[in-house]
């Protein structure tokens, strides 16, 4: 009997020594920091975007948006003219040029012939020839919103697929939370205000805006 107790004691001691020593056998890893040890972090662009959207992305864009009527008047037909003042290039000082803009106007046409649907907007107080279009999906072109945000960059992501996934998730938020609720098909002739981003396209003066705020007046 005594020997059994000793044997049991030793077994427990062995178990304890294996599990509880602070000698590197057991390591406590904080939640979310597993990647530091395994090199593998489960990436989820949707979570990433959810985390930045309300707290960082919207406030920044509301803050930096330039009035589109003034912008177009000042640019005088050359959408790259104000790059230094308001634009952000995808490669520092070259590449694709994106702007954050805001404005109010009347919806002239809601075009859903293409999957990449859009509505054309007649800006208040502007008579220039540029077509102002707001994307209404279901297909959203480009990555204008991601490319204007100051606080995320390609280097923070594992590869270009993850970087692209961020933009896809942003466009999904736009579809669900920005465009969906205002029912674009009902907006013909209505007065709207918007905040959004657009990327200058080569060979066209169309201003194709991906909205982050869309309000019917």
């Amino acid at each position, binding site marked *: 009997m005594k*020997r059994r107790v000793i044997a049991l004691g030793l077994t427990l001691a062995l178990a304890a020594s294996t599990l509880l020593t602070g000698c*590197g056998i057991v390591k406590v890893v904080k939640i979310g920091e597993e990647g530091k040890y395994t090199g593998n972090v489960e990436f989820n662009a949707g979570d990433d975007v959810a985390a930045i959207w309300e707290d960082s992305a919207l406030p920044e864009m509301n803050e930096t948006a330039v009035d589109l009527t003034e912008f177009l008047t000042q640019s005088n037909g050359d959408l790259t003219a104000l790059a230094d003042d308001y634009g952000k290039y995808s490669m520092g000082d070259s590449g694709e040029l994106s702007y954050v803009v805001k404005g109010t106007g009347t919806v002239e046409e809601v075009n859903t012939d293409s999957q*990449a649907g859009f509505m054309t907007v007649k800006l208040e107080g502007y008579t220039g020839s540029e077509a102002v279009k707001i994307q209404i999906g279901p297909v959203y072109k480009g990555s204008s919103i991601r490319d204007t945000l100051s606080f995320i*960059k390609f280097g923070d992501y594992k*590869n*270009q697929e993850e970087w692209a996934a961020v933009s896809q998730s942003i466009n999904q938020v736009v579809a669900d939370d920005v465009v969906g609720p205002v029912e674009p098909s009902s907006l013909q002739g209505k007065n709207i205000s918007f905040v959004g981003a657009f990327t200058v396209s080569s060979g066209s003066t169309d201003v194709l805006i991906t909205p982050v705020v869309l309000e019917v007046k």
Partner: protein
Amino acid sequence: MKGFKKVLAMLLAVAMVAAMVMGCSSGGGDAEEEKTEENTEAPADDAEAPAEDEGSGEVLKGGGSNIIYVITPSVSNPAFKAEADTATAKAKELGYEVKAASHDDDPTKQTELFDSAIADKAAAIICDNAGADATVEAVKKARDAGIPTFLIDREINAEGVAISQIVANNYQGAKAIAEKFVEAMGEKGKYVELLGKESDTNAGVRSSAFHEVVDQYPDMEMVAQQTANWEKTEAYDKMEAMLQANPDIEGVMCGNDTMLEGVCAALQAAGKKLPVIGVDGSDEAAALIKSGDATGTALQQFAVIAETAVVQADKYLKEGSTGADEKQLIDCIAITSENVDKLAGFVYTE
């Protein structure tokens, strides 16, 4: 029975002691290794402290010689030839001796080339790599020998190993040209896709970018998807076979321009003209776009990428820093009949 219990007790006791000793000694070993690493790094850090601003460890001095290695995929593809030629020319212009070689997309061969660079005490390595995972070890090995590696075109799945990763934004480029493809197809119809070599990251990247765009259109239907391993003749044969199986194909997406060439030749032979897109921006593809046989391609600015890498290598060797982030994306440019005239020799001139 008594004896058995004694033996068991002894065994348990021995196991317990062993567990404690092993656990502790491995922990202690790690600590010692870390210490010696710190010791060896410390003097170098002190010497380079003013120049280093990236915080990614010690500054690599180069192997000691004046040789820059330029390692690329096979130069039978004009895109990689442009890349290798530009890097070589720029490095020579900056006063380096250049050894250029191809790994033919074989990681083993690439490792051998890195070993040669280490044996040659190369000043730096410029590399368009043979695999996002397979390359990490080779770059580490060069790093351990004090040789900085500057990756071009394709990225690897590790940071802090190479000094720069100057990557063609394949995803953005493939997406941009896929949008043109959908427009040319009128947002509907049956199409096929030819994929690149499976081991090459870009084959997957380009395909997922194509599909991110195209799959959003419910009336676009992919009827076949095959690999042609980036090759022209293979693409010709596959296209011929796919046309026989699906005579009503209305468009073709190709992972690169050499496959686009093969596809266009097969379509011509069958007396068809359909929307066809590729990626790379070769002069051959440009000619097909001009003649209306192809819809478009996404120009990877190989010359810009290669030259940027050499300039950064030179700056890093002289100043201890490139002054740029490790990972840098270089945009692709969608080329269609509208702007194809501005493209020549992988250089786009506004």
